Structures are given as structure tokens and as C-alpha cells.
């Protein structure tokens, strides 16, 4: 989110758009997208010629469509730097369009649009049945017969994906077992092939890539830059790099139970029925993960110590506070959703809840949630503000004093700054 500190944190309420005008104008409107700063709202629409385009509106202006219209447009998103990006096609040629300007290069299909935090854009692309990745309009030099799971590096300079490095035909099961997949980084494959590769993940400095691989049905490894750990496991989940030092952790399965392994060795020695989504505190000193210490009972473990509280159904979106002192996540228990922080569940339960957000000083936690058909914001366990028909995730101001609320009420889309 660029220029985050320069956003308007003073105006308490702006009516950005009245969507009834949109509805009169367009026979077809897709899901609304709101810019991070809340100043703009946009959606894919069909114009009077029944062609796809993008309509956008900001405070004090009329709704405007892009000048170009297309046979098809999809995947409209605001980039982290608040440009509007979409995948568009004209006469069968697909391109990325940002703020109504398309890339030079066109493809038979593009998908999986990814951004780094500066707004670099990469997509997976197919042309004449060959696959590659296009980063900021520059395609890889090499193409592959199959490509999936593309990721972009934190600095935006690199893209990587799982590729079929040895073309293998359907039904060639013995060849498949020899290993026909590799990772391509900026189009260059590792010199090793594996039976399967999953979960590519860049290190924070963008210099390394870790993946899960299997070399046989029962030998699963973590591989980093093409080299596997020494020991194999009966299964593994996603690897993660430490943000501070060169080190990788991954959940590994052994003897039917899950453990957290670090750099090839079992690191958390306590066996779990399940363990995944490990994540680091910002300084890299603490690790937490979602675990099931008992069958069917879920909780968070912080440095291998599970919280006492248990949830019956699901845990998701775990995160550390920016100062690394707090851990929060969402949970689902007996059909209802809730928020848990540092081992305690908020009292209120919801029909649905979105990624929790910590304030910069770590002292507040806010979520967007849905209950009885309406959206609300909850701050530290209490509902604040009014109900909405649609809502974007809340954002704390840089000084932690207020929250940006971007919501739709009836047909008007409002941008509000609420003092805490």
C-alpha cells in the first residue's frame, strides 16, 4: 500500500459514489472493487454495445468507463499501488490492462495475476499451447508444456513456477515416476527433476526458493534452490523462510504424525494430528502454527506450545502483531466463526469473518465480519460503526488512532475514517 501515510486520514466521511446511477447505465455489473485508500470504486461492466469494460468512480466525479472495451474482461483488482488491473481479451488475444492501458504482448490465455508489494504484476500465460510467465510485460525466454503454481518474488524481480521439464504423456506412469517436474525461475529450470513439486515460496530477500517435492510415493522432501534436505518424510506441507536468517521450516509427517522441521531436522518434537501454516514473528524469533493436538480439535501452537483452547472445525488466517507480541487467528467452532487472540476467543461469534488486521503498535485488532446478512467491523471484540451491505477490510491509520472503513450502504459507497 504505497503512500499509505499520505492518505486522507482527516475527512470523517466521504460519499464516493452512488451506484444507482451505475445501475441505470449498465445492464451488467460485476463485483465491486474498492481501492486500498478507499477513494475509488470500480467494477467490470458491460457497455451499451454489450462489450466488457471497467467503470470507475471517485468522489465528486461521474462514473466513467475505460475507453477500451473488450470481448471479455475478468479478474479486476486494485494493485497494491492502487492502479486498476484486469485481464482482457480482444479477438482471442489476452492481455493485462492497467488503468486502461494494455501490455504490448498478447497471449492465447493469461491467468493467476500476482502482485508484489510495489505493484509489479506477473501472470501465467499460454500461447500456442506452450506455457510461460510474463512479468511486467516481459515473458520468460523459455516455454514449457505445463506450468502451474506461479509466484512472484518480494522484490518483484523474479517469478517462479512449477513446470513440466521433461514432457510426459498421459499414461506414461513409469516415466512419471522417474521425475518430470522442476521449478523454473525467470524461465530457467533447476537442473533436477522431481516426481512432483508443490508450494514454491521465495525467501524475503528474493534470492532463494523453497518447495515441497516427492521423489517417490513415500519420499517427500523440502528442496531449496534445487537441493533437497537430507532426510525424507512420509509427507510434507508448505516450507517457509525465516524473515531474519537463512533458514527454512516445514511441517513434516513421520509415523502418521506431524512435526515442524527446521533445515532438515525435527524442530518441534511434539507429535500433532495436524500441523500447517507455520509463520514467523516479524523479527523471526518466534514461530507459530495451526495444529491439531488431538484428533478433530484445533488450536494455535506458539513455539511448540499449543494454546489451551480448542476449536472443533477450523482455524485460519493466523498472524503475529507487528511487534511480535500478539498472535491472532480466525476460528470456526460448531458452525460459527470467531476471532482468537493469544489463546482467548472473543465473545462474539459471526456467520463469516475476514482476515484480522493488527494496528501498527499491535494494541488493536479489527476484522470485517458478516452476521444476519449484513457486514460490520469489530474492533477488539466489539462491534463498531453501522451495518453495511458490503464492506472492504478495515485499515488502521499509521498513528493507530483511527480506522478506515470502506463500505456500501444501500446504493451509496462511503469512505469513512473512524476515531478509535
Amino acid at each position, binding site marked *: 500500500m504505497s503512500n499509505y501515510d499520505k492518505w486522507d486520514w482527516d475527512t470523517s466521511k466521504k460519499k464516493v459514489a452512488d451506484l444507482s446511477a451505475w445501475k441505470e447505465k449498465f445492464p451488467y455489473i460485476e463485483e465491486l472493487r474498492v481501492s486500498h485508500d478507499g477513494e475509488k470504486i470500480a467494477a467490470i461492466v458491460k457497455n451499451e454495445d454489450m462489450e466488457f469494460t471497467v467503470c470507475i468512480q471517485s468522489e465528486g466525479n461521474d462514473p466513467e468507463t475505460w475507453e477500451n472495451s473488450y470481448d471479455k474482461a475478468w479478474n479486476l483488482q486494485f494493485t497494491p499501488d492502487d492502479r486498476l488491473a484486469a485481464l482482457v481479451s480482444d479477438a482471442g488475444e489476452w492481455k493485462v490492462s492497467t488503468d486502461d492501458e494494455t501490455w504490448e504482448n498478447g497471449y492465447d490465455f493469461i491467468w493467476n495475476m500476482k502482485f508484489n508489494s510495489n505493484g509489479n504484476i506477473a501472470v501465467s500465460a499460454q500461447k500456442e499451447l506452450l506455457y510461460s510467465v510474463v512479468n511486467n510485460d516481459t515473458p520468460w525466454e523459455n516455454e514449457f508444456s505445463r506450468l502451474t503454481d506461479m509466484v512472484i518474488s518480494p522484490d518483484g524481480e523474479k517469478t517462479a513456477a512449477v513446470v513440466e521439464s521433461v514432457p510426459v504423456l498421459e499414461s506414461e506412469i513409469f516415466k512419471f515416476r522417474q521425475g518430470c517436474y522442476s521449478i523454473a525461475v525467470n524461465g530457467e529450470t533447476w537442473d533436477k527433476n522431481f516426481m512432483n513439486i508443490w508450494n514454491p515460496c521465495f525467501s524475503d530477500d528474493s534470492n532463494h526458493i523453497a518447495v515441497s517435492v516427492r521423489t517417490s510415493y513415500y519420499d517427500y522432501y523440502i528442496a531449496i534452490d534445487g537441493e533437497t534436505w537430507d532426510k525424507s518424510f512420509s*509427507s510434507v506441507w508448505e516450507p517457509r523462510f525465516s524473515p531474519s536468517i537463512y533458514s527454512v521450516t516445514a511441517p513434516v509427517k513421520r509415523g502418521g504424525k506431524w512435526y515442524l522441521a527446521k533445515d532438515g531436522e525435527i524442530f518441534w518434537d511434539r507429535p500433532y494430528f495436524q500441523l500447517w501454516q507455520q509463520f514467523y514473528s516479524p523479527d523471526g524469533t518466534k514461530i507459530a502454527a495451526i495444529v491439531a493436538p488431538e484428533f478433530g480439535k484445533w488450536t494455535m501452537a506458539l513455539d511448540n506450545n499449543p494454546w489451551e483452547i480448542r476449536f472443533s472445525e477450523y482455524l485460519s488466517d493466523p498472524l503475529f502483531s507487528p511487534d511480535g507480541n500478539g498472535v491472532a487467528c480466525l476460528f470456526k467452532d460448531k458452525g460459527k466463526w470467531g476471532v482468537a487472540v493469544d489463546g482467548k476467543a472473543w465473545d462474539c461469534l459471526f456467520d463469516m469473518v475476514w482476515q484480522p488486521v493488527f494496528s501498527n503498535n499491535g494494541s488493536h485488532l479489527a476484522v470485517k465480519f458478516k452476521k444476519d446478512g449484513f457486514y460490520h467491523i469489530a474492533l477488539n471484540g466489539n462491534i463498531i460503526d453501522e451495518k453495511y451491505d458490503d464492506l472492504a477490510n478495515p485499515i488502521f491509520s499509521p498513528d493507530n488512532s483511527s480506522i478506515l472503513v470502506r463500505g456500501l450502504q444501500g446504493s451509496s459507497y462511503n469512505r469513512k475514517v473512524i476515531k478509535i
Partner: protein
Amino acid sequence: MSEYKSVKEIEKDPKKNESKKIEDQGILKGLEQLTPEKIEIVINQVINDETGARLKVYVDTCVHCGMCSKGCHFFLSLNDPKFSPAGKVKQTLWEILRKKGKVSTEFIKDAATVAYTQCNLCKRCAMYCPFGLDVAYVMSVMRRICHKLGVVPLYIQDTAHSHSATMNQMWVKDDEWIDTLMWQEEEAQEAIENLRIPLDKEGADIFYSVIGPEPKFRAQLIFQAAVIMNAAHENWTMPSMPGWDNSDMCMFTGDYEMMERLKRRHFESALNLRAKRIVMGECGHAFRSVYDVGNRALAWKMPPIEVVHAIEYYNELFEQKKIKIKKKFDRPVTLHDPCNISRGRGLHEMARNIVKATCAEFIEMTPNREHNYCCSAGGGVINCGPPFKNARVESGKAKAKQLFAAKAKGAEVVIAPCHNCHGGLEDIIHHYGVDMELKFFGDIIYEILELPEL
């Protein structure tokens, strides 16, 4: 070529099932890479590390009474003791446990054939054995051993590989999937203007997932589902990225690590989009994998998000009057209860409610509901492909008789709300010359649906 014209002709058939030579490259070439030592190590690893009291009790308790024989459509069709449920255990785990894993490659060849192609894992026999011994579980253990030995029929092994590389069963590439959805959306706009198949819509009430063969071979089903969803004014979505396929051949080959990976991706696809529930197309085995087997493997007692089979969903549409029909489907229908959703989830009464709501005339097949006969295609058997097709169709003789009986009472159309059953029944209908038409509920509902006014 149709072989029989009536039930009687089947009865009179003197041909007994001759055990046919297996010519499956997955099994044969897999065996070449085995040694007795390797077999013993793998078997004992699976038995010691992955099984326990359940297997022991199942094998120890069996009193060899043969009550389960009539529970199995293989036995009913072929009348050969080798095909009774306990007979299959005898050819696999009894021997393995007795010899403590010291068995020959020849034994593994036969055991693999039994476990992968002569049991549909339909669990009907558990309802016929007085002790409720679950032969399907024992066959799964045998499959697990074969998977680890790399002795798996070629076709199903290939689909399991596809799952591992693409997260779907049919080698559908990421772009082909999205392209198919967009194409079906366009097609469906002929029926309803501005109809949408909303991709990756956050917070939808319904996350609709299908099996790999739908985009590959039966894309019209996606089209029909889209029309029904739109007619019912649902807030629904489908994912653009892998995770859209709810099917699971890894569950059937014995590749449980992959099954876990697949189910996790599928659940997370829906949960990351904050969907309220997953509605699945008309498929039985996929439902089993999501509702029963896969979730357990991942340590969820029940699925982390409500999973709703198409039958339950359609039933709800009629109960809540969310869709209207123009008129009832007027040809007489009969209903095949797919094992995985009747015996596997008790949806048989709801299926009958839908029949009542949509069809003018209904003729029951017997036995039915929990006691239905499997189509002989389930449990991954049809996915073992052409080498086993004849054997599979022959083991469907009991089903063919049922179909003939329903036909004699006037039924012209068989509704089978499961993909696998469709495949299996299609072959049976063709082979025995039953001459009935097969339909999904979706086909029928789509045909008689009153499209909303715009």
C-alpha cells in the same frame, strides 16, 4: 453388442465367469520392480505402522460363515466364491497376515487385481455380515500396500498422477479450466441473458465444485448447473485456480498423502473465498472423499465447511420453492441409488423427493435405498480402464437384472445422480442390451426448468 434381451436370458446363460488373464501394464511392469524382500518390508510397514485393532478384529472375528456373499453384487452376478466379500479377504489380507508378509510377486499380482478391480468399496457387505465387518476397509489396506509397492492398474495410476501434478483428475491445465468456464458461461447466456459463472467471488453462499471429467467430457453439466444456480438467484461462485476438482482417485489407489493434499486444497479453496458451504455436482465418490475419508485423513472429524451433494441441494431448491418447473418430465423413470450418497450419506429419500417433484411416473428398482446394488464402476474400478472393462460389466449382471425388471414395469429412463454410476450403467445398459436412457437429475431439472423472466 448386446448380449441379453431379458432377465431370463441372463439366467440361462451357461457361461460362468472364467478368470481372465490380466494384461495391465501398471500391474505387470510394477511387479517387475519388486523383490520378495521389498514386498515383505512394505507389507510389514503398512501393517505395523498404519493399521491396528480394526484390521485385526476384522480378520479375527470373521467366522467364515458366508453371510456376506449375498451382500456383494460381484458374487450375485458371477456366483463364484472368489467374489464373496470374505473370499476377497481370503485372497488378500488373510494370506498376508498368515505369512507375515512373505508372499510372492505372483500373489501380489492377484491381490492387486482383487483389491483394485473386484471390489467397489461400496460397503454393502457390511450391512449383510452379522458382525458388520467392513471388507471395503480391508480392501483399502490391500490397495495401500499395492500403492506403496507401485503395483497399481495403469489407468487409475495415471489419474492419481494427474491429481498430483494438476490437482485434478484429468490433466486439465489451469488455463483450460478457466477457458471452459468462460465458454460454458457464454453458452448459457443463450438461455439466460447476462448469466454469470462468477469466478473467485468472495463471501458467496455457495462454492460450486465439480469433478475433473466435467470440464473435460461433460462441460454441458457445468452449463446446466449455471442455469439452475442463476434461475434460483443464488449467490454462488466457482474458483479459477486448482482446488476446483472435488474428485479423488488417490483415495482409491491408496495414495493417502496425495489424497490429503487434494482435500486440503479443495477445502481451502472454498474457505479462502469465505464461502458458506460447498455444493458439489452429481458425483458419489467425490462426495465420499470430501465428506467422509479425506477430512478424517486431515484430522477433521467432520468437514470444516458444510458439504452439500447436488441431491441435497436440488431437494432444497424444491422444498424452498427457489425454482419452478414448466411441466413434469413425462417419461417413466427409475432411480439408481449411488452407494456413496445413499449408503454413504442417506440421501436416498431426498432423491425420491426430487423425483416426485420433477417426474410424472416413478418405478422403483429393488432392492433400493441403502440396499441398492453398486453399478460395478465405483471405488475406482471403472478408472482401472479398458483392461478390466469386460470383467466389470460381467459383475454388473445383478444390476442388469434390476434394470430389466424396472424396464418390464415400464421405466424408460434411469436417473443416476453420480458420474461413476453413469459410466458403469452406460456400459451395463449397452452390454446387456437393456436399452434405457440415462440421466442426471441436473439433465431433468434443466429440461423442465422455467427460466426466470428478465
